[in-house]
């Protein structure tokens, strides 16, 4: 096997794995950075979106794109309801109360999905155009991985432009930096949070569907992958979109390479890498201030 193809395989595989984590986690980073809200139930939104997408395709014969849109907006809508009626009450509470609340929410989601849909695993049926392999010239690679990498890049770019170029993005950045200051400048932080929370949850829902090909989808989803989402957010830095993007991609590629060459190490690498990165940069790659 030639070296170029080897390296390309590693990079593409790692980027695809990292992209999935990025799409699901980016919302968590922003909401935690913005309000300091420890939303462990973020994965539950991803699961909810994933179920919407997969069920829409399998049972209601939606197309892939339409199902993705449904997943995004459906999850965002649900999150707005929960945010207005429940999350809102806990903004000023301690982080441990938030932990209790969001873990309880995870249980409710797990039980709800198990009761309504059933405990079994759901399978995503990719459209024919996205399955199989794509020839890139120097290497033929899994089409869906390349599709994911491109989508992830577009999303990261889109969010970054929103943050840097728009009014609302500026407000978000100001609030992440210093909430009290932002409030005194007349920014409606509550409204801002509802919007970002909805958007972040919608992204999670989208990620739940897009990532189902790799992560699978069953009622245990919010607990199974919680650690990975938290790792990406903490290594990336709270409230930093670009940080989370880099963290997801770096961890994805490094973990992929190490697993490929040293499979006996199992999951050790991801944890060891996280510990090393956090000891070196306790506030994350491009972390703004904590809390």
């Amino acid at each position, binding site marked *: *096997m030639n070296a170029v193809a*080897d390296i390309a*395989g*590693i990079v593409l*595989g790692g980027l*695809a*794995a990292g992209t999935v984590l990025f799409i699901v986690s980016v919302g968590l980073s922003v909401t935690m950075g913005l309000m300091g809200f420890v939303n462990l139930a973020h994965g539950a939104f991803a699961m909810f979106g994933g179920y919407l997408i997969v069920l829409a395709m399998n049972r209601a014969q939606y197309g892939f794109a339409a199902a993705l849109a449904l997943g995004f907006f459906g999850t965002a809508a649900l999150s707005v309801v929960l945010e207005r009626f429940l999350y809102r009450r806990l903004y000023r509470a301690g982080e441990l109360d938030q932990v209790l609340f969001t873990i309880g929410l995870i249980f409710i989601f*797990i*039980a709800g999905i*198990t009761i309504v849909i*059933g*405990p*079994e*695993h759901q*399978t995503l*049926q990719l459209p024919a155009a996205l*399955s*199989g*392999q794509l020839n890139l010239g120097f290497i*033929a690679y*899994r*089409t*869906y*991985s390349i599709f994911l990498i491109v989508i992830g890049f577009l999303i990261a770019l889109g969010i970054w432009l929103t943050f840097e170029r728009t009014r609302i993005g500026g407000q978000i950045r100001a609030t992440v930096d210093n909430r009290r200051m932002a409030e005194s400048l007349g920014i409606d932080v509550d409204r801002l949070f509802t919007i970002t929370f909805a958007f972040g949850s919608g992204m999670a829902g989208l990620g739940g569907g897009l990532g189902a*090909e*790799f*992560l*699978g*989808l*069953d*009622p*245990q989803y919010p607990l*199974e*992958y919680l650690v*990975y989402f938290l790792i990406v957010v903490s290594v990336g830095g709270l409230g930093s979109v670009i940080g989370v993007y880099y963290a997801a991609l770096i961890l994805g590629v490094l973990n*992929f*390479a190490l*697993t*490929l*060459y040293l*499979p*006996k190490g*199992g*999951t050790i690498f991801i944890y060891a890498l996280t510990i090393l990165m956090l000891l070196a940069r306790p506030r994350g790659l491009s972390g703004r201030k904590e809390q």
Partner: protein
Amino acid sequence: MSKRMIAALAALAVSGGAPGAASAQEVKIGLILPYTGPGAELSPNMDRAIDLYQKLDAAQIKPFKLTIIKRDSKAPNGAAAKVDTQELLTQEKVDVIAGYIYSPDAIASAPVITAGKRLAVIMNAGTAFITNLSPYYVRTSFTLWQSSYVMGEQAAKYLHAKTAVVAYTDYPPGKDALDAFKYAFEHNGGKVIDAIPAGGPGATPDFTPFFQRAKDEHPNVLFVFVPAGDQATAVVKTYAALGMKAAGIQLTGTGDIVPDNMLQGMGDSAIGLITVHHYNADLDNPQNKAFIAAWKKAYGADATPDFTSVGAWDGIAAIVHALHATKGKIDDGAAAVKSLEGWKFASPQGPIEIDPQTRDIVMNEYLDQVYKGSDGKLHEKVLATFHNVKDQCKALAIGPCAPKK
């Protein structure tokens, strides 16, 4: 002191209820399955099999009446299963214990079963040495050594493979599968060139790096074991997406990578896979035909039983046999176990027998291939049948199955 009193009370209660009651004698079966947690998706298929048996073979059960008391073994770590076992025995005073999907559940409960002196039928847990842990354990499911050993043998003999890469979930069944495959394959002239631990039994890992590594090593076959469930689909999809078939690598495994109830969801990627297992829903025997027909009638045309269902079906059949053999005194665990030693049964999976020495199941293994039928659905056809396969781990006294010094 209080211990003795309780034991006496328990004995009184049991003996008082047992013999020659005029109406149907009630037999309490404590059923321990994970109804929540990672194993939750496996339980319904076993529950359904147990319900179906009682409906279909009601005549067999008479004059007894089975009362099933269900308990949730929760996360697959043995903790809840052990407490469940203890309370079913002491509080509910059940006559028989059944269930156990995950091996740690059966392992943790072993001392309780031994002390409780009741028959316990393992309906799924597959770690080979479990039956050594308590003289009251009887297993109607399988061990990984049974299927993987045959697969290793046939990879060399039937597929004429010279080299193999093994990818396995990094927990005891996975290691059993690896050991069995490797032992049989290498004793038949093959060579396992790499063994890749591919993640744990919980979260589905990204199989791409593992399969990428396997692909780069160009083996004749890739042998995979993952727990039946969410991971199976990811295995088959990743195999297809990486173009490994085109690269001349045959995917093989135990039947766990093509569970019957998930087969249709895998799509065309699954076509051509070769596996060894003791059951598939397409098996051509009268018991299975009746079983499938009844299943689809009861649970819908799209519903399919799988090997876990058959393990539960056979387990209940074993309990009913022990009931008759002991004339209702199934709560005498030693007698119940004795009555099952050498027991033969025509199961939907073909003829089975309980090995009198090990109390483990002896059964047929089938070399299967997935194909697309004329109905547009995926099916499995049997390429070869291997009769009366014993658990090779105990037969060869290897590793953890070797008698402890």
